């Protein structure tokens, strides 16, 4: 018996909420990036689930694109973290106030 699409959608929503909570509540820059990755994965899971629902592969192509964008985002995000660490010797985003006016 095939698993209903709603099961995957609910799992994806749970993962998205957990990722959003991580982004909103954590203060370490690395944990915030991890939360963003989790949210991207949840969105990917929804795309793949609806791709099967509609019997078309286009959703899976979008997942592929999101993966590539996520890889680019992580590379730039982690480079930013390294640059921030060199400047303030910390990746605590609470201490990152040099751009506040």
């Amino acid at each position, binding site marked *: 018996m095939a698993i209903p699409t709603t099961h995957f959608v609910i799992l994806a929503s749970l993962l998205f909420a957990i990722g959003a909570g991580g982004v909103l509540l954590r203060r370490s820059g690395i944990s915030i990036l*991890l939360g963003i990755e989790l949210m991207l994965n949840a969105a990917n899971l929804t795309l793949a689930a609806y*791709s099967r629902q509609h019997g078309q592969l286009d959703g899976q192509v979008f997942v592929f694109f999101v993966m590539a964008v996520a890889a680019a985002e992580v590379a730039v995000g982690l480079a930013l973290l390294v640059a921030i660490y060199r400047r303030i010797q910390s990746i605590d985003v*609470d201490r990152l106030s040099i751009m506040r006016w």
Partner: protein
Amino acid sequence: MELVVFYVAAAVAVVSALVAVSHRSPVVNVLSLVITFFCVAVNYALLGASFLAAAQILVYAGAILVLFLFVVMLLNAPSEQPSPEPRPVQRIAGLALAAITGGGAVFLLLAVHVTPGVAPIDGNAAALGRLLVGPYLFAFELISVLLLAALVGALVLVKRKH
């Protein structure tokens, strides 16, 4: 049988995701997120997306999280200390916003009428590749430009000024 696999994978994914966002040690965060991504790969396999399952393990669990782990080691990131000033309002607001996001996503996605019929598809590499170099050729080429830009951007950001 498939349903059992799904429930086990889903439970492990949610628990390890919770550990990934709540544990104080960054190394534990990254390693439990690896487990979550493996479980998401299992879900892709259940959805008939065999290429995505392989790509998930290779790209996410393999490349991206190793990069994370590398940066954690490079920065010698300490465990997150409890905030010197407790801010209960922000904490509650953050939790509420996360709950609204997740609950709203469930509500919106379930409000869409889903026909019970599930079409079997086979997302193997050949089928996806035919789409990628066919209708999605332009986006595919743009992605390569984006990756090159990200590569150059990352190099410029971490370059030491002499």
